[in-house]
């Protein structure tokens, strides 16, 4: 229902706005510039900070902050009266007491400095209050950013971002001391604090107080002047300054000159599935900084440590820059022509002798949609095999399969906004704070500020569990049981959404009957949870306006992974939590393009857009377009390919951008299979563990060196642009595929990825309206996309993904998890961590990240440590039926009892968790059961150096509070409000109170 608009008088015009808007917002909506440094970050909100005092206006004659004053009908607002201007100027003058304007020699003089631009706008001419340095040295302790108290204007944007957007709750302003400043934790050096290095504070800083170290001395033409010259120069400028306006002219010229040498290119992050997009600022091949923008659809101004500071790998000396061919137990450099000719010859010979299905193709979820499309086209049209798969087989295929069974579409139901707006978020077997950090910030913010309820079901007390209203700890692999018990309880209480079930869901009665066995008693016995816990969750779902369930590998990487995913979708259907805002199912995709790789057809049973290869009509469409014959039978998935290599059925394999030799389960077995291959091509940006088994290694170009699109966990397709030329002789993956196809006689002529997307859009109805034109800059599209470009942020509003438009409740049975045997007495959990991505071969090239988290570590509970008499730093050997690892111990209360946690951030086999995992798998999709393993532990050294350095955020001491606490500023003895100053000093020319 639309509310009536409100009209008010602003200067000489009438402005219409929505009720509830503040004056500042109403002006911004109309593109009227209003000064307001502390309202310059829309993600933080307007008027929440109230520290800068530059947005004063006269409201019916009284001075008011425009950022907090709500528009009322008929209100008269003047922002240009002498009084309003005097107030704005006074606000700015108070800021400049804390900030020296030496813009031309400042690295932040890039046209977007809020302090510079506001001072210029307000025509500040002189320093009204003398600047005095603060008694604190700059804090340069953090490897990636610095804090310079002398330049800090105490606006608190950084504090707000840390406390209420990122919600790591590290930063505060200490208003109580004589000279207030920003402090980290309880005032420790930044590096020793609980700072997670996400970069929010640096991004929002309106001046140069918080800056990326990579910018310092690099951005400006004159910013690298030595200190003994710079300081007198600043003094001189201050001494002789003819008024700031002249200085602004010079700094504006200098800022424009910088545009010539600093490129700003939009990219999409190459790490997790959240799909953050931001600008990369570069000077030649140097990355100056990552600059997020409010327009970015998934993340706004948010980043995590990897997106903000994890890009050094692009210029690493270890990059592959030339093709390599195996000759006599060594790799030798080769030309592209030699390498491609050899590949074409070998693949064609093997196909001739053993058939097309003797070839296997493994695609990359790190690479673009266009590259995945072209790779499956290469496999299917040039080599006539469906043996093509991607790494979602290791993580999320069960989630997609569970959704396809019930609601018909294997993707998130809505967007991150829906998660943020939900009444209740339930996280099952996922650790978003570390694996999907920016998405997690939205949950933490909603929980902290907007009364969103949070339930976490996880073995570990991860950060979200710590914050949750309820953290439940079911026995490993039993989620299906408690979820089904909660669903049954909801039916029993009559809390099911019967109207929704009647109109929109099939198979209700049969499903309801299948729930009979999931009584509370049965669930208590199997899961170890208490009845009260489960009932409480059912009540929360019942009472909430909308529930989102988020899940990841803790659910999928089990023998019953698909069934548990199905149980989640069932619960959401029963409670009517599909097809409405702030509700739905959200499998959290792990890689930047794990969604897109599957979407664009690197799957053995699907063409792009999840159309079955077995469907004659669909196949015909592709055969006609590609002028080729495509086999009807689905091909082998990753798991089956390894088995087939072991059985000598698959003889050659082409793999790109996938570290299968470390991330597949039971890697001893996988290595054995690789050794049996007759011919193996590995394409990567680094010489990976997998590449060691190759016959030909091809050097690929990462996302910053090419164009393309990625699809994030929301189904959002976003474009990334080329920042650099490919390093050395490396090439974008799509160009390599085209070259190989043409070597084999295909006649492909793609000039750019845009043409590949056009072809995919023509063939796959789900992407009919996707085009590069519609994806320019910050634009994005969420599939399915109609031909006219209309996309689908929220699925199932009108119908589900089945021919009759109705969802299906799908009965599932619990599968008992794998047991290794009684001698293996400890449960082994495993997964990611915040700082390093996956096994870490990209992020470990960033010194700052490695400084914070150099090694994997084994999390051991206090109870177990006591029992085994070990301390943090102890060296232990873990043994499973499949292999052994040797790692150092970290004792923590994140794990309980006999449960261990080993993150996967290593490229050393001896520490690699997949030496221990088995080849058992989800019975429906063949996703390995990584999360079902038990081990025994031998103590090699009872004590030693901690594997996690003391500068890691996990040892910090956060100081939670809401925002910047401006009240404390106002209570200071030396604080005088701007209206008071204006009144007292009678500084309004021509309006002073004279009798004549």
């Amino acid at each position: 229902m639309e509310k009536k608009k409100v009209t008010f008088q602003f200067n000489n015009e009438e402005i219409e706005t929505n009720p509830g808007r503040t004056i500042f917002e109403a002006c911004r909506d109309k593109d009227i510039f209003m000064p307001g440094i502390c309202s310059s970050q829309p993600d933080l909100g307007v008027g929440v900070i109230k520290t800068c005092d530059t947005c004063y206006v006269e409201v019916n004659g009284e001075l008011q902050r425009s950022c907090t004053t709500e528009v009322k009908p008929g209100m008269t607002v003047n922002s240009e009266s002498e009084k309003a201007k005097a107030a704005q100027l006074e606000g700015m003058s108070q800021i400049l007491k804390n900030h020296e304007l030496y813009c031309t020699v400042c690295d932040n003089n890039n046209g977007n400095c809020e302090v510079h631009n506001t001072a210029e706008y307000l025509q500040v001419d002189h320093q009204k209050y003398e600047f005095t340095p603060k008694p604190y040295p700059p804090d340069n302790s953090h490897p990636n950013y610095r804090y310079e108290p002398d330049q800090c204007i105490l606006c608190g944007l950084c504090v707000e971002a840390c406390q209420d957007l990122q919600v790591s709750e590290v930063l505060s302003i200490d208003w109580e001391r004589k000279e207030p400043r920003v402090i980290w934790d309880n005032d420790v050096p930044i590096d020793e604090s609980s700072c997670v290095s996400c970069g929010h504070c640096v991004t929002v800083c309106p001046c140069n107080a918080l800056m990326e170290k990579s910018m310092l001395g690099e951005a400006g033409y004159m910013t690298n002047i030595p200190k003994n010259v710079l300081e007198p120069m600043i003094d001189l400028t201050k001494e002789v300054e003819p008024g700031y306006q002249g200085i602004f002219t010079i700094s504006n010229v200098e800022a424009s000159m910088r545009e010539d040498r600093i490129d700003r290119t939009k990219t999409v992050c190459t790490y997790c599935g959240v799909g953050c997009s931001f600008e990369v600022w570069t000077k030649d091949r140097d990355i100056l900084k990552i600059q997020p923008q409010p327009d970015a659809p998934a993340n706004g101004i948010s980043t995590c440590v990897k997106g903000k500071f994890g890009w050094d790998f692009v210029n690493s000396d270890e990059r592959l820059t030339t093709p390599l061919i195996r000759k006599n137990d060594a790799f030798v450099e080769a030309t592209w022509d030699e390498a491609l000719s050899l590949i074409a010859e070998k693949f064609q010979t093997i196909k001739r002798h053993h058939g097309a299905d003797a070839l296997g193709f493994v695609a990359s979820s790190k690479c673009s949609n266009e590259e995945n499309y072209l790779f499956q086209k290469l496999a299917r049209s040039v080599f006539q095999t469906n043996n093509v798969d991607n790494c979602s087989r290791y993580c999320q295929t069960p989630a997609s399969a569970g959704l396809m069974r019930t609601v018909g579409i294997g993707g998130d139901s809505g967007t991150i906004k829906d998660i943020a707006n939900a009444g209740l978020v339930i996280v099952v077997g996922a650790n978003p704070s570390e694996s999907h950090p920016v998405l997690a910030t939205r949950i933490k913010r909603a929980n902290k500020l907007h009364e969103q309820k949070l339930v976490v079901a996880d073995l570990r007390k991860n950060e979200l569990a710590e914050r949750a209203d309820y953290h439940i700890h079911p026995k490993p692999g039993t989620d299906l049981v408690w979820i089904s018990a909660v669903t049954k309880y909801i039916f029993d209480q009559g809390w099911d959404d019967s109207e929704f079930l009647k109109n929109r869901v099939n198979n209700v009665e049969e499903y309801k009957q299948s729930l009979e066995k999931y009584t509370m008693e049965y669930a208590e016995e199997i899961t170890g949870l208490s009845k009260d816990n489960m009932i409480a969750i059912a009540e929360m779902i019942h009472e909430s306006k909308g529930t989102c369930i988020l899940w990841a590998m803790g659910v999928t990487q089990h023998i019953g992974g698909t069934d548990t995913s199905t149980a989640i979708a069932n619960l959401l259907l029963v409670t009517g939590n599909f097809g409405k805002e702030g509700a739905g199912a959200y499998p959290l995709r792990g890689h930047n393009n794990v969604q897109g790789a599957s979407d664009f057809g690197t799957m053995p049973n699907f063409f792009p857009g999840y159309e079955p290869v077995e469907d004659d009509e669909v196949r015909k469409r592709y055969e006609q377009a590609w002028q080729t014959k495509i086999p009807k039978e689905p091909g082998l998935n990753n798991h089956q390919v390894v088995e087939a290599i072991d059985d000598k059925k698959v003889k050659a394999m082409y793999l790109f951008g996938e570290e299968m030799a470390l991330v597949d389960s039971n890697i001893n077995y996988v290595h054995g299979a690789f050794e049996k291959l007759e011919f193996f091509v590995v394409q990567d940006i680094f010489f990976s563990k997998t590449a060691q088994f190759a016959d030909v290694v091809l050097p690929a170009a990462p996302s910053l060196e090419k164009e393309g699109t990625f699809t994030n966990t929301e189904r959002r397709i976003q474009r990334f642009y080329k920042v650099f030329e490919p390093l050395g002789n490396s090439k974008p993956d799509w160009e390599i595929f085209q070259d190989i196809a043409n070597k084999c006689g295909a006649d492909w002529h793609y000039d750019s990825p845009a043409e590949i997307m056009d072809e995919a859009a023509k063939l796959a109805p789900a992407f009919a309206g996707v085009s590069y034109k519609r994806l320019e800059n910050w634009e994005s599209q969420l599939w399915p996309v109609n031909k006219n470009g209309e996309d689908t942020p929220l699925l199932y509003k009108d119908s589900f993904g089945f021919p009759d438009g109705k969802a299906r409740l799908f009965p599932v049975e619990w599968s008992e998890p794998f047991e290794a045997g009684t001698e293996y007495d400890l449960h082994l959990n495993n997964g990611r961590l915040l700082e390093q991505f996956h096994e870490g071969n990209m992020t470990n090239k960033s010194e700052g990240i490695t400084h914070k988290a150099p090694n994997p570590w084994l999390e051991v509970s206090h109870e177990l440590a006591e029992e085994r008499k070990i301390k943090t730093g102890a060296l232990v050997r873990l043994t499973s039926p499949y292999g052994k690892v040797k790692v150092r111990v970290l004792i923590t209360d994140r794990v309980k009892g006999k449960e261990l946690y080993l993150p996967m951030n290593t490229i050393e086999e001896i520490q690699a968790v997949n030496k221990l995992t088995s080849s058992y798998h989800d019975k429906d999709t063949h996703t390995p059961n990584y999360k079902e393993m038990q081990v025994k532990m031998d103590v090699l050294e009872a004590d030693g150096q901690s594997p996690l350095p003391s500068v890691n955020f996990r040892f910090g001491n956060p100081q939670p509070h809401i925002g910047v606490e401006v009240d404390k500023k106002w209570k200071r003895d030396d604080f005088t409000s701007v209206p008071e100053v204006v009144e007292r000093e009678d500084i309004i020319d021509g309006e002073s109170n004279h009798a004549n």
Partner: protein
Amino acid sequence: MAKAITQINIQEKTAEEKQQQIQKDLLKQITDNHESIQTTLEIVEELQQAGMLDMAKGLLRMREKIGSISIDKINQPSMHHLIKNGFHAIEFIGRVEPEELEKMMNGVIHGMERMAKETEKDEETSMWKMFKTMRDPHVMTALSYLTAFLNGMGEEMGKKKPH
């Protein structure tokens, strides 16, 4: 049957090969731009003869020290005055109406010419002659402008300083 291997034989270019490549690239650039390079060389020759290059070399090599010395020298009260006065002078000129300035400057120049003629004369000026001159309409005009100017200047100088 391929075991994992890590040996990569990189065909490193020898130092000589690298140098040859650079020479080749440079030569090409020189031939492509030979005209501008020849002119540049001529300029460089002149600079060398004039001793400018030696001076520049010294300045560049000692840039940090010199930078620090000269900025210290500049950062002194007398220099502050010079720079400030410079700014004021420029500001002053900027504020004067061009037509008025032109009129005045013409007057000054004309007056100076007359003054030059006057100094050439070798006779003493009597008080009587002075008074007589003052009755000259041209002199009267100049004097009345001058008194108007003094009036305005006095008014501005008599204003109290703002807060």
